[in-house]
């Protein structure tokens, strides 16, 4: 019985992985579409295998300029501008992060909702610029903000609900007024039928970044309550993917893989890789959308995130302590010998009073 369940689970996961690779996955990206040859990126076939897409995307990427601000190549997603309050996000479609299309809204009346740490909501009208949905905003204060979009359409009698979400951050290394505990709390949208929330680390403040080797936990929630048995797929910029089913507390855990292996002189510690967490859910619910009836619904919730190389990849205590100790010992011995050489030996001078 258990074996049968495991088999069914494995088949389910396999099917889901295939379905995610083929289905439309909408996600919110902070990377601007390339200015040069936008059509090439727009028309990139996003149904091919990730490795092939990566190769296909590599050619235009090689011609792109480097972002000197963060000193990383814009090969795929740009490193977020976390230190700036000004944010711009675009809606993209496709599970290949490097070549996902920039798309527009299906309906003109869709709105983006931003929720801040205090639970305050701000509504924005979705704006299409050159056929791409984008939102430009400025965050009011340092901290995390979650941005939500809900897009619905009926296809073949099935309601397709896309729930892309982005976690925006304005960070400051010199801001002390930030309440670190408040920042660490996840923001939850209690009105969302399906949501992926990244659990923040206990000591996570604005300046903490995910690094390869970290364990990242995602919570799958529906109207703020945890959902068990929902497959969550983590897809990285380099095409690695893994699917984990959420447990009873709605939690799905992944270890962030290391996918950055440059030569030493090309290594950048601020190199940023992107991932997307995708949760999918089918529901037997009937209804109508703008007069079009449907008999079931399919929900797809996404959450992109970024991670950097682990400090263990480039920092060495052994060398650091070795150099400091060498200087201390060498300096101490040198000073001791210098002082000893300058010591004048004691000389007794005898004066013969009778002489």
């Amino acid at each position, binding site marked *: 019985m258990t074996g049968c369940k495991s088999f069914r689970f494995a088949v389910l996961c396999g099917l889901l992985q295939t379905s995610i690779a083929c289905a439309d996955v909408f996600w919110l990206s902070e990377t601007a579409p390339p200015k040069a040859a936008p059509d090439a990126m727009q028309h990139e076939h996003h149904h091919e295998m990730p490795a092939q897409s990566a190769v296909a995307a590599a050619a235009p990427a090689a011609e792109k300029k480097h972002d000197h601000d963060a000193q990383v190549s814009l090969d795929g997603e740009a490193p977020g501008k976390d230190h700036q309050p000004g944010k711009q996000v675009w809606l993209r479609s496709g599970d290949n992060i490097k070549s996902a299309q920039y798309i527009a809204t299906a309906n003109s009346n869709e709105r983006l909702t931003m929720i801040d740490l205090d639970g305050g909501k701000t509504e924005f009208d979705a704006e299409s610029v050159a056929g791409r949905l984008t939102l430009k905003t400025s965050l009011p204060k340092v901290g995390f903000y979650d941005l939500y979009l809900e897009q619905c359409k009926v296809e073949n009698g099935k309601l397709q609900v896309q729930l892309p979400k982005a976690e925006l951050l304005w960070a400051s*290394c*010199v801001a002390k007024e930030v309440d670190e505990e408040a920042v660490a709390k996840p923001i939850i949208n209690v009105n969302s039928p399906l949501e992926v929330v990244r659990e923040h680390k206990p000591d996570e403040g604005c*300046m903490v970044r995910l690094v390869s080797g970290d364990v990242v936990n995602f919570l799958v929630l529906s109207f703020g309550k945890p959902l068990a048995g929902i497959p969550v797929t983590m897809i990285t910029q380099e095409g690695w993917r893994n699917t984990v089913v959420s447990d009873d507390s709605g939690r799905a855990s992944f270890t962030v893989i290391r996918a950055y292996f440059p030569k*030493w002189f090309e290594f950048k510690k601020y190199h940023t890789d992107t991932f997307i967490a995708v949760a999918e859910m089918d529901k037997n619910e009937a209804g109508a959308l703008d007069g079009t009836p449907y008999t079931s619904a399919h929900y797809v919730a996404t959450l992109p995130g970024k991670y950097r*190389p682990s400090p263990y990849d*480039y920092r060495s*205590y052994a060398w650091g302590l070795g150099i*400091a100790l060498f200087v201390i010992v060498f*300096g101490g011995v040198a000073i001791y010998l210098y*002082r000893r050489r300058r010591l004048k030996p004691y000389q007794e001078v005898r004066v013969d009073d009778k002489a």
Partner: protein
Amino acid sequence: MTRLEAVRAAVNNVQFNRFRFWLQLFFFALLVYGGYLGVELGKSLPTFACGYNAEGRGGMCYLMPLQHQMAWSWQKLFSVAGLTVLTGFLTFYLWFIALNKGWCGFVCPVGTIQDWMTSIRRKTGIRYSRYTWGQFKGLALIKYVLLALLFIIPLGIGGGWFNKDLKSPFCMICPGRTIIPMFAGDFSYLTIDFSSKINMIMTVLGLTVTGLFFVGAFIKKRFFCFYCPMGAFHYLLSKPALLRLRKDGSKCTRCGDCYRVCDQEIKDIADDVNRKEIMTDDCTLCLKCVASCPENGALKATFAGIPIFESTEQGFIKRMHKGTPDGK
């Protein structure tokens, strides 16, 4: 004796080293652990309240944001955004004016650590070192070179000449960056950063300076202060400062006590009987010279022109007899 005269006499007779020790300890706790108690004195402090001590700091050394701002692109630096540089500098200046170089002598955590190391050396009976006059004159220029580089390198980054990894060049070699976070349990700055050639060179340099700091501060009083660009920066801005060190040459007998106790080996404090404003660029305004002077009113510290601590024969004798039945 009026009440004011009694207070003045009590201040002038104070066991100065003990008073200074506790005051330094207070400021050390405030700037290194104050953050845990919600203390936030801003980002423009004219002392080494190290910004790399992210959790514990009660304020931040101004040199860190200054270098970051200087590394802005020139377009940004010389635009309206440059006003934030000015406001930061004005805040720094207001802090500085209050205590002048007293920030070095009483507040600086790196200076306090050096004083503690001097105490340890004294207890071990190892004698301290002094520079020769030639060495003194030559090495005294290093702090100005560091100060100039502290501006030039970040400005060069803004102009696109240097790599951004150099954007806090002085912080990278400052021993405060490696040592102060250790007091808050953060040892991560004792590492060499191999992520780029520049980071590697700068962290090697930083840990070399840290090693030299430990050796130097053990045998030479206030070893690092002699090379500190913050001290040079202070001196260049010190003209309108409120706390001042004054000398009345007519009362000076040139006994040399002030020179002998000076951690910075400043000869002028004993030799110069003409200048009234006796503070030099190497002075940390620790006021040990005032405490050790046996002549009434020869040396005095004033705040906004009002004498707050001056040398007296009675105070000198009391301090010299410390621990004896006479001196208590």
